[in-house]
């Protein structure tokens, strides 16, 4: 092994195990590790275990980076470390006010999509972005300050919905690009 595969993602990058994270520090740690293990660093060496090890390391480092980079996957990973896998999170029952919120978002997106209203879709994407900012802050409080995992799991589910919605909007917008 070229990197210690038994380390959790945070430890791999030498970062504290918490939700709040400085992106520049993560990026820098990622670059530092990839400078060691990336296949480009080993291309001139004979095929063999060292190259395979470096490859395993490079894969792991990228996997870890991808998981920590985005607030949603980072929160999911923290919950998983705390013993709350995706099956547990998904089994959570959503509070009625969130369900109502979701319904409203969906209707707004469907309407804009039905009338091919690009401006409206872009507006919605912007509003989603703002709402997501608030949800990220909430996650930071629940995960880092209150250590309230159940509440965090609820918020993660809300965020999954918002992300999915954003993706749907982006796909519709992408179809209008060309």
């Amino acid at each position, binding site marked *: 092994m070229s990197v210690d595969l038994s380390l959790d993602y945070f430890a791999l990058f030498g970062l504290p195990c918490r939700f709040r994270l400085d992106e520049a520090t993560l990026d820098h740690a990622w670059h*530092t590790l990839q400078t060691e293990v990336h296949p480009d660093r080993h291309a001139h060496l004979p095929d*063999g275990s060292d190259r395979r090890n470096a490859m395993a390391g490079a894969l792991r480092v990228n996997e870890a980076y991808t998981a920590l980079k985005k607030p949603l996957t980072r929160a999911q990973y923290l919950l998983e470390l705390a013993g709350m896998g995706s099956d547990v999170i998904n089994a959570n029952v959503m509070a009625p006010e969130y369900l109502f919120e979701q319904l409203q978002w969906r209707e707004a997106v469907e309407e804009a999509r039905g009338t091919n209203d690009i401006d409206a879709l872009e507006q919605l994407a912007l509003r989603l972005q703002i709402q997501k900012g608030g949800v990220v802050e909430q996650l930071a409080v629940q995960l880092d300050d209150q250590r309230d995992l159940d509440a965090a799991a609820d918020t993660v589910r809300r965020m999954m919905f918002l992300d999915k919605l954003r993706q749907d909007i982006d796909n519709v917008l992408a179809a209008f690009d060309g």
Partner: protein
Amino acid sequence: MALLQIAEPGQSAAPHKHRLAVGIDLGTTNSLVATVRNGIAVCLTDEQGRAIMPSIVHYRDGGGIELGFDAMSTRVSDPRNTIVSVKRFMGRGIKDVTHIEAMPYVFEETPGMVRLRTVQGSKSPVEISAELLRALRKRAEASLGGELTGVVVTVPAYFDDAQRQATRDAARLAGLHVLRLLNEPTAAAVAYGLDNASEGVYAVFDLGGGTFDLSILKLTRGVFEVLATNGDTALGGDDFDHRLYCWALDHARIDPPSAEDARRLLMAARAVKELLTVCEEAPFRLRLDSGEEVDLTVTRADFFEMTRALVQKTLAPVKRALRDAGLSPRDVKGVVMVGGATRMPHIQRAVAEYFGQEPLTNLDPDRVVALGAAMQANALAGNRREDDSWLLLDVIPLSLGLETMGGLSEKVIARNATLPVARAQEFTTFKDGQTAMSFHIVQGERELVADCRSLARFELRGIPPMAAGAARIRVTFQVDADGLLSVSALEASTGVEASIHVKPSYGLTDDEIAGMLRSSLEHASDDLTARALREKQVEAERLLEACAQALAADSELLDEAERTTIDALIARLRQLVTGHDANALSDAIAALSRATEDFATRRMNRSLSKALTGHNIDEL
């Protein structure tokens, strides 16, 4: 070997031989080869001092081929056997090729990749490209005075797996050792970024003869990180020529032209297009075989109007890439223009308008890709200096998916994931006693499998019979730094393993490649065994060199028994390296590699913890 990589601070690695490595830009219209000489990337020229080699291959009646400039004149006199823009056929089926009706070739109705019928028989685009690569290899070997250790071949960033495989196969066929397939815009970014010591977010807009790429990169302290890439592998200068060609057919009221006349008209169209870059109007004048005269005048305004849709077409990938990167045009610090077709004024204007800034046109759009590829080749061959440690982090351009029930594609690896990337997924059987399972891998963003590109189908056999749902089959998809996919599968409860290297639905099988190699005249005369032995010797020398350095630096990481074994294996390898037995040599290399495996791991861990400690201190 990781062993060689790790040089202690203040201790320089032992000087080693400079390895001959080149970068090749295998373009739709023009190809180039470049190398790093005394620390500077330069294009290698032919005897007449020309760096560019037109990507044209002429198969002569009665045998033999002409290439590059020498094949230019036969484009009109022998259009069926003079192949231009072959890159557009790489890894493509006949239905994928646009404007096929304006092409003077005889296509064969075969499944998979298109094939062309020539006087010398049926040719695959892979074979035709290999001719171009072989010519560049000869140029490089003559100019550098020795056999090449390895090459970096560039590909459009938006090339899918099938197109990449085809390019790699062509290089293999040309007898080249491919160190890396490198994305063209990334190569350009390296050449530009290293030259200008740039930092920040840049876009590379690469419009060549046949392909369009748009990549967004973030440059930070020597790291070139691709944030997103998008493009169109069937959009380039050729399409602008085609618009002019159609316009001319229309205005001169020409009936469907002969193959010769079609070629003449296309060449005239290209000349007109290029003239309009510098002039307000250009004559479209030529005499056809039929004796008909074409005498038209094209103004810039006409040309801009008839190609407006094509220019618009380049903006869609720009928007998508920016959206994927989560950026707006304002966030981009500079737009690097690459490819001959970016010389067109209306392209430059559209880019300037969209980004709200003048694009960067201060580098040679024809050469910059080859120069960047040469820099990467130099680094990958192990020639780089310690203080010269830049790194490329590139991405996969298109999502990979698996066909699921109902003909839907379930995404396994998302587009723009940083390479290398692997993703494991678990499947189970749905029938009692089921022993086989088949998978269909596709690439693309659409929901329906039918709208994506089929890459390969593979079957996993030998699943132990169990009750439905009891088997747990773990399939791992891995995309390496070349952007190429490999798949492996494992039944978790029994450990039954099957590793499948993906052969694309549009690719060649290993047997086909071997057959082509055999039939290729050049290689019949090459002494293949001698070459294989030489390759093994080079590998052995490198391994010995690596071990010596590692032992000098970190021998305290080994206990006495380990050290004795390693020393014995080194001695054996030393003995065999001067001999003639390639198999014994190969075994000895494998044995020493295995014996140093743990040692390498320990060294790597030590160096990594050092790297990170250093990093933490930096942060304080």
